[in-house]
């Protein structure tokens, strides 16, 4: 089951560049939350702070508190542990090129020392079904490499790989921006089904996409969160002038 995320006074830097400033927000469990805003506004940095991927960059720094469920992720737990609870899907599909489809999905478990074949088989099948890829690949799970799939299939493979470690939260950083419209529609359908089981945070450039998949939407601008509300409210009656300007296409 998904858990809620509580962000308090979050600040993040790359070197001297203050990319996130005083972010406060509560992301509800088992809902999809969309983050929108122009390029470079800090939304990707924000999601990377939620699984501590931000700090894999040696010049990056973070202050503030992020609670996921009842864990303070910057104090109670190591980065490696939190990343097992908070899965991530990146903008460009990034399957492991030398691994089969099966091994790609099983990678998270295998690399953490899990080796029970029966259980692995089950989890791989379940994850691929959850990511709506099973029917397309079930016949060559171990024959084909993850890199031999189409872009849209690769992205669903990456989603299956993230789901296989059974996370509570799924972060998606522009998961459909490198895909064609048909694949995008499939990913969006998937988000709809997945939010029953996971808390989903999705960064997107596509405002229609935010409106289609998310209950809540946050608008970021220049490293600050301008507004956070129900998606309906943001797109029909935003409280802030800057949000209105952005969603009506006056800038960005």
């Amino acid at each position, binding site marked *: 089951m998904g858990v809620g995320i509580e962000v308090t006074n979050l600040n993040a830097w790359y070197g001297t560049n203050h990319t996130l400033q005083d972010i406060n927000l509560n992301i509800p469990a088992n809902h999809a939350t969309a983050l929108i805003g122009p390029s470079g506004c800090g939304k990707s940095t924000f999601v990377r702070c939620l699984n501590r991927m931000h700090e894999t960059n040696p010049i990056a720094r973070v202050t503030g508190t992020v609670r996921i469920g009842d864990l303070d992720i910057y104090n109670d737990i190591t980065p490696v542990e939190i990343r097992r609870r908070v899965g991530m899907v990146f903008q460009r599909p990034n399957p492991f090129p*030398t691994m089969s489809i099966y091994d790609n999905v099983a990678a*998270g478990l295998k690399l953490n020392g899990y080796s029970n074949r029966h259980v692995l088989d089950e989890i791989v099948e379940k994850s691929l079904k959850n990511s709506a890829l099973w029917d397309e690949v079930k016949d060559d799970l171990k024959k*084909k490499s993850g890199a031999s799939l189409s872009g849209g299939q690769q992205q669903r493979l990456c989603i299956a790989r993230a789901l296989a470690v059974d996370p509570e939260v799924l972060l998606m950083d522009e998961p459909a921006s490198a895909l064609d419209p048909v694949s995008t529609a499939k990913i969006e359908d998937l988000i709809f089904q997945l939010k029953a089981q996971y808390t989903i945070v999705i960064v997107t450039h596509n405002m229609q996409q935010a409106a289609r998949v998310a209950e809540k939407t946050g608008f970021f601008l220049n490293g600050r969160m301008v507004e956070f509300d129900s998606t309906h409210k943001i797109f029909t009656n935003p409280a802030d002038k800057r949000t209105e300007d952005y969603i009506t296409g006056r800038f960005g």
Partner: protein
Amino acid sequence: MRDEHKLKARMRAGIDGLATGLAVLSTVLVVAPLVAIFIYLVYKGASSLNLDFFTKIPKPVGEVGGGMANAIVGSAILLAVGSMIGVPIGIAGGIFLAEFGRGTRLANAVRFTADVLNGVPSIVMGIAIYSLVVVPTHFSGFSGGVALGVMMIPTVCRTTEEMLLMVPHAVREAALALGVPNWRSVLSITVKTASPGIITGCMLAFARVAGETAPLIFTAFGNSNWSTNLNEPMAALPLQIYVYALSPYDDWHRLAWAGALVLIVLILLAVSLVRYVTSRGVLKGAS
């Protein structure tokens, strides 16, 4: 107007043909020396190849016949010892340079040292190993293996580093985001992704030292009898070829040609075998 188009099209086709021709010519020039050497070796050496060559040891001076069985086996042993030293140290060094030490002073020092080591003439390497290993002990197959192994290290190390740096950042991030510890991600994901290139680097280093004579003169020393004992002087194909080629006897000259042919064929076989074995696990579509 139409004629002008036609003329331009014909010019483009001409230039295209010219460029393609140059590329083909260059390819031929690259392959030609290898083919020429091989043909010449077959011409000079094949007639002296017989079962005795692969099963007998050298006959004393003056007696006709004999073979290089001891040198073939000796080379195999020396190369095995060399690879056991050079490959693990080289790969580990490359992993350090690319993954753990990137940007540190130690890494820069190691990289510089490897490049200098790569440029050390093989005869100097032989003398160095002579004073470090042979002088405290004695001439031995082991010291020959050490000399070859040390020569392999820089090539293996630097190719491993280059190949690891070519693995896309996205692949590393994917592993880290799954909650895989960094060391595990490096060993199981990054190194695995780069393994075809790393294997090529090892093969290059192997093929290069397989033909080395100079570092063995002062170490393995050569042996005209059977010797598979690492603690004793050991025969090696390049050494045997060297000694026979410098001798005044026609029969030995013929054997030297045959030895050279066998050496090249064995290197080709070893490289092809490793390629075959390691490519079987690779899946279609992986690049």
